């Protein structure tokens, strides 16, 4: 993120702010606590006053040391990374405690008033405006950051749940000693198909299975990407020292594969899962007794 051009007096204003925080920490903390306790987003059911004060004090300290180590507010720079890390930690614990994103952002935003009133006390009019602007902008960005963290955590949760469902949807099953089967269902997107391959290969390594049957019975159609992905899975399996058998290829899929001129090469294919299993038995030197 490029730095915005600094006004000539911005460095000076930063210095003022930094000095203000350093010298009036106790007073700022008290006023900030006052603001927080008066806010209608206060959740004394989720956090007690003592913890709130402790967290506020700690955050002010982190903020103060970030302010004093640089002359520009640059969230990308190392001193500010500490502030961001502290905010991540705070957002995480608040999220887990049941706070909303807005309630968490208010924690930061309610620091505006105390900071502004202290830092602008002795400033001339044009500097006053600039200082208010500087403080507002900085705190807005920090508050926004807490909401971003909330958002990302939400997305991560959704993604994790999705992944869990996907894992359920594509189980690697050990159907015989040395034989794994992977019944594929629906259409696979890129990210999911990579996960599927990874779990198949890991299962091969963990169980020492030499044959993996990829069953496509539940796959209605296939596109180029997926066909190529299948070929890559087969190649990776072979590199590890195991073999794939493709089974249950529907006529439509067979046609796509022919149409796409994808070389199935020496990949073994069987019409049904049962036929693939028989062929896998043969490959492992097992015979099926009673087979007609």
């Amino acid at each position, binding site marked *: 993120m490029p730095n915005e051009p600094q006004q000539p007096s911005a460095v000076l204003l930063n210095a003022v702010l930094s000095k203000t925080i350093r010298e009036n920490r106790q007073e700022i903390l008290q006023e900030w606590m006052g603001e927080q306790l008066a806010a209608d987003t206060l959740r004394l059911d989720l956090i007690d006053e003592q913890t709130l004060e402790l967290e506020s004090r700690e955050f002010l300290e982190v903020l103060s040391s970030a302010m004093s180590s640089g002359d520009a507010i640059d969230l990308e720079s190392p001193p500010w990374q500490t502030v961001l890390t502290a905010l991540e930690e705070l957002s995480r614990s608040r999220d887990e405690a049941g706070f909303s994103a807005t309630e968490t952002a208010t924690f930061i935003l309610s620091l505006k008033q105390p900071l502004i009133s202290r830092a602008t006390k002795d400033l001339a009019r044009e500097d006053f405006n600039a200082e208010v602007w500087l403080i507002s902008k900085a705190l807005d960005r920090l508050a926004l950051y807490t909401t971003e963290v909330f958002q990302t955590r939400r997305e*991560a949760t959704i993604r994790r749940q999705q992944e869990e469902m996907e894992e359920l949807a594509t189980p690697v099953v050990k159907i015989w000693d040395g034989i794994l089967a992977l019944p594929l269902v629906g259409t696979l997107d890129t990210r999911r198909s990579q996960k599927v391959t990874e779990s198949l290969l890991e299962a091969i390594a963990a169980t020492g299975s030499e044959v993996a049957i990829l069953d496509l019975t539940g796959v209605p159609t296939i596109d180029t990407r997926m066909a190529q992905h299948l070929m890559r899975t087969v190649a990776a399996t072979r590199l590890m020292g195991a073999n794939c058998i493709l089974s249950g290829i529907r006529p439509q899929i067979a046609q796509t594969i022919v149409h796409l001129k994808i070389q199935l090469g020496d990949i073994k294919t069987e019409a049904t899962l049962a036929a693939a299993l028989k062929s896998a038995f043969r490959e492992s030197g097992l015979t099926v007794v009673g087979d007609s």
Partner: protein
Amino acid sequence: MPLETVSVDTERDVSRVRRAITAYADNLSFDLLARTHLVTAASELARNMLAYAGGGSVRIAKLRHEARVGLKATFEDQGPGIENLDEALSDGFSSSLGLGLGLGGARRLVDDFELETAVGEGTTVSIASWHEPDRHPPGGP
């Protein structure tokens, strides 16, 4: 945030680059596949730098964007540059006896890939991969 710069002058340095990136990726808890992809891409680029430009340097940096962290490696050399970029990036093209898979392969293995080159001046390639740290303690939900 810059982490380290490794200069690449001998083939031993290529292993040093691999080890350094492995360590940083572990540090940021990249998953195994993402780490292997990134380290392999780095290995290809470091090797190219040595083979075609006689060496160069690798800057390793940590990136962060919101709650995601990334690892970036920038390979900079003052070699001859690459005349025909499309050709160099395509699979199977090699000016040496190589397989011509290094450059195109490296691009496929990472999330971000940028290449700048000027004939007679040198080549800079940067790659990065991203990762979202799992914020839940082990055993948690």
